[in-house]
């Protein structure tokens, strides 16, 4: 973890309430896709956690949905402004488990961290399938970005206005070697039930600190209580107690 003051270089809407922000600054603490940064936003006391969508030596990209005061304020910030951030938080996804043909499954604003993951898995020569689930056509983002990486992209919408109709579980490939999932808990549970192969799932919690100090975010696993912010946010399927 490292405290970094990032400079905003871009803050543009992708849909009616989802924004992409590019930040310039030190990314040396970011070591794996699926990690997150914790942003200090003016007027709010607690920081707000947002996943790293992608990063390089000069900076990083985040994609966020406006759901409350913090993300609303974030959407009003302009290029040139500074953002105090704790960077490189959490464990991130383990790429070594991918196998030949992994599937990446994202729902809504669970999609962003999968982009950085897909990019790195493609570089390793894997046959990556990406399954993206949204509510409706107007909420779809990054479909083309994943395609540009060379992934096989499948999209579902709940109302059928774009791609297949239904939940993301309706478009999953038959025999992936491993899965990587990020989305709401109902989506994660549905994926957990649908796919028999090994997998990694990314969780969310309201966080006090984001770096393991406050015990605000713990969840039960077969190996005892883990902190979502530090021992997660990515958990292995095998350590979840959903089997019961």
């Amino acid at each position, binding site marked *: 973890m490292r405290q970094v003051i990032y400079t905003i270089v871009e803050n543009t809407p992708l849909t009616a309430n989802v924004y992409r922000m590019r930040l310039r600054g030190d990314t040396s603490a970011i070591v794996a896709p699926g990690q997150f940064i914790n942003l200090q936003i003016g007027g709010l*006391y*607690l920081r707000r956690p947002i996943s790293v969508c992608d990063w390089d030596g000069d900076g990083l990209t985040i994609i966020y949905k406006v759901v409350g005061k913090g993300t609303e304020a974030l959407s009003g910030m302009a290029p040139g402004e500074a953002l105090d951030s704790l960077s490189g938080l959490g464990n991130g996804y383990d790429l070594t488990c991918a196998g030949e043909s992994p599937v990446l499954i994202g729902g809504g604003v669970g999609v962003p961290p999968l982009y950085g993951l897909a990019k790195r898995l493609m570089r390793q020569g894997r046959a990556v399938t990406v399954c993206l689930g949204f509510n409706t056509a107007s909420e779809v983002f990054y479909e083309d970005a994943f395609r540009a990486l060379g992934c096989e992209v499948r999209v579902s919408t709940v109302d059928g206005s774009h791609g297949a109709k239904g939940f993301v579980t309706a478009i999953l490939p038959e025999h992936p070697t491993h899965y990587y999932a990020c989305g709401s808990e109902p989506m994660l549970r549905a994926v957990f039930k649908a796919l028999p192969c090994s997998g990694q799932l990314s969780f969310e919690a*309201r966080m006090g*600190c984001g770096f393991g*100090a406050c*015990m*605000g*975010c713990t969840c039960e696993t077969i190996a005892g*209580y883990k902190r979502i912010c530090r021992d997660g946010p990515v958990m292995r399927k095998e350590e979840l107690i959903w089997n019961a």
Partner: protein
Amino acid sequence: MERLKVNLLGIELSNPVIPASGTFGYGREFAELYDINILGTFSFKGTTLHPRLGNPLPRIAEAPAGMLNAVGLQNPGVDRVIAEELPALARIFHKPVMANVSGFSVDEYAETCRRLDACVQVGWLEVNISCPNVHGGGMSFGTDPAMAAAVTRAVKAVTTKPVIMKLSPNVTDIAAIARACADAGADGLSLINTLMGMRIDLRTRRPVIANVTGGLSGPAVFPVALRMVYQVARAVDIPVIGMGGVASAEDVIEMMLAGATAVEVGAANLVDPFACKKIIEDLPGVMDRYGIERLDKWR
């Protein structure tokens, strides 16, 4: 630096800044960020006789200039703290640590303190009496002078280490609780713990925190905390540690002016992991500005 030193119940602190219990874990996360030996000491996570899983999530909520928490004293239990956390701490922290203890009966407090009394690393016992008494209808020990005194006496009987009773602000007359603890033999007092509060999510129309209520801390509580430290310091003759919303070197000085011998810093560590380091570095400059030569004898 000589001018920052204070004496807390017979142990010299290099400065009066002490990260507060529950916001610093057992020190490990912060030791990765800076040398935690620059601290006066720190108060480790509230420890109980048995392991505790804590409350369901969400445990955290935003508040104006602060936060609510209902962690529910999640901790591995005193035996694992002694067997695992303290040896790990010995490698990164070379000063006496403050052991924060919680309990749900007088016997539980006493037994946990008895076990910690055997640890050379522990400099002080800080006894959190904001917990509900399971044998007393769930009422917090810290809200009744007789119960607070009973815990104090039970703990004093099993330890030779200085005993600091940590007071709850959720009372009508905090000076009365403070006097009861002092009369029962407490060596020092610390205050305030969190103020009980709650938030409701307008969208779901349900409390944000799963436990319904949570403890408020952060800058929002600073004036309340300062007032209580002031009242308590005048009501007793034993040292008082002030806390509640402290976020700057100025706040530390203000707490000391109200009567505190040392100052704990809680929620600030969560939003700025370097908060205590910055406060310590800022202290000499702030002392210069206000004409304070030394922190031990100036009031």
